[in-house]
């Protein structure tokens, strides 16, 4: 297989702005097929935005995003929706449909996109729910679920159509240690068992590093580090070291840019 064919998502010289604020300033990423790639960086670096650009929900200001050979921002409505059938996105809060119960949420994509009989859909849904350990919760309403359970149901829904690419938006945020452990194992197990390609956007270093095959570090709209977890831990990049060790000061300053402290205080006295 050529190197090109091994890459499922290819991002080149991506620029994206919201109003006057630059979110991405020329980033390049390659997401390898069959691997778990993590995108890490501080809050507000546009990690979620990146997933939306890959999913075609946003369009870049310039640069390109290719998914499975398709230039995603040039796709028209129908082919884009066709391509999305082979993608899954796990939203941070699960984004389950609140008027449906757990079973119907997982059945939703199957009912929308296939002509399968109800008995077949039932079997498939139970299999997906079993995979995330929630077969017994099939009749619960989404409002009855804990945060961790909601994410697992959303995961079952995201794999309902057996996608090639699964994207996780901050899957570990706000999880208790048990839910966190469950999710970490599930992401790795699903990726390997179903032959998926996974992208995890997160700033939970320990959990993400433990399952990611390759990691990109983003800051200020640029890729500031990349490699395996070991490579990054041994990297000489000050930024990478600050982020991975959680130091409060370094290339990312503790203080938001401001005037000189003393001048600021004295200017109050002058008034």
């Amino acid at each position: 297989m050529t190197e090109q064919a091994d890459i499922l998502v290819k991002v080149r010289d991506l620029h994206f702005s919201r109003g006057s604020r630059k979110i991405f300033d020329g980033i390049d990423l390659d997401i390898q097929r069959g691997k778990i790639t993590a995108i890490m960086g501080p809050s507000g670096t546009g990690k979620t935005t990146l997933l939306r650009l890959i999913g075609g929900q946003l369009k870049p200001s310039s640069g390109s995003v290719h998914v499975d050979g398709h230039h995603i921002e040039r796709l028209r409505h129908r082919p884009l929706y066709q391509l999305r059938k082979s993608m899954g996105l796990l939203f941070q809060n699960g984004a389950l449909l609140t008027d449906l119960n757990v079973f119907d949420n997982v059945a939703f994509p199957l009912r929308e996109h296939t002509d399968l009989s109800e008995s077949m859909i039932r079997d498939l849904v139970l299999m997906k729910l079993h995979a995330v350990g929630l077969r017994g919760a099939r009749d619960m309403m989404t409002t009855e679920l804990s945060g961790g359970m909601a994410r697992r149901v959303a995961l079952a829904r995201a794999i309902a159509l057996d996608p090639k690419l699964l994207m996780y938006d901050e899957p570990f945020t706000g999880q208790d240690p048990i839910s966190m452990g469950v999710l970490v194992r599930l992401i790795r197990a699903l990726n390997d068992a179903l032959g998926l390609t996974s992208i995890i956007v997160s700033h939970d270093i320990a959990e993400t590093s433990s399952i990611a095959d390759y990691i990109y570090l983003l800051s200020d709209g640029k890729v500031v580090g990349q490699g395996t977890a070991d490579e990054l831990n041994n990297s000489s990049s000050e930024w990478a070291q600050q982020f991975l060790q959680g130091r409060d000061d370094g290339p990312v300053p503790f203080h938001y840019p401001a005037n000189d402290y003393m001048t600021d205080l004295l200017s109050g006295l002058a008034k």
Partner: protein
Amino acid sequence: MRNSIENLGHKGLDFFQRLGRGNILFAHILIGIPGLFLRPSLIIQQVFSVGVLSFVIILVSGLFVGMVLGLQGYNTLVKFGAEESLGVVVALSLVRELGPVVTALLFAGRAGSALTAEIGLMKATEQLSAMEMMAVDPIRRVLAPRFLAGFISMPFLAAIFSAVGVNGGYFVGVGLLGVDEGAYWSQMQANVDYEGDIINGVIKSFAFGVVVTWIAVFEGHDAIPTSEGVSRATTRTVVHSALAILALDFILTALMFGES
């Protein structure tokens, strides 16, 4: 001075941008409607939640509006010895104006606000976004069935409002105030024109159905995805719908009854 001109400019631009977005959304909804006929269950479900659940408020309001019309109409007509025309007054007021207009106003308050809040919250909780990523177009799956349900429900609700109102007028006029029963019904039958009055009333309620549901689904879809944004969108739905209904009613009335 400069600031106020700037503000006015911003508001003007904002208004036209929203109008443009509203029209684009309307076009997308219309494109999505033919596909719905392959899945009638989606329409039926929404007709239930938009139309059937508005039934009680329409029924009760129609009864009281009819009773008030009976009372007021009688008090005025009796001065001229024309109380036998009460049936005509009640029926024409309801079929031509109050039926479609009050139903649409109540519908905007009951169903329109609920539609906006529901769609706005679906947006705020990323349910619409999740649908897009599941390759399900939320405009076709969520907005179009709700729009069609509003369009279908409104004329039925207006017809029920008018029918109950006529009976409310009968109860007060004939039952309590002693107007002749035969005169009440026969004058109504003789003077209410099928095409000129009833059909025009139905056309009005179809038009109000389009406008109110369009405003409601647009406001929900266009809402800022925060609790404050959804609450403001819900308020806007009721206010804009009410203004649109009354303005449109004047235009339609002028076109339908202006020359007679």
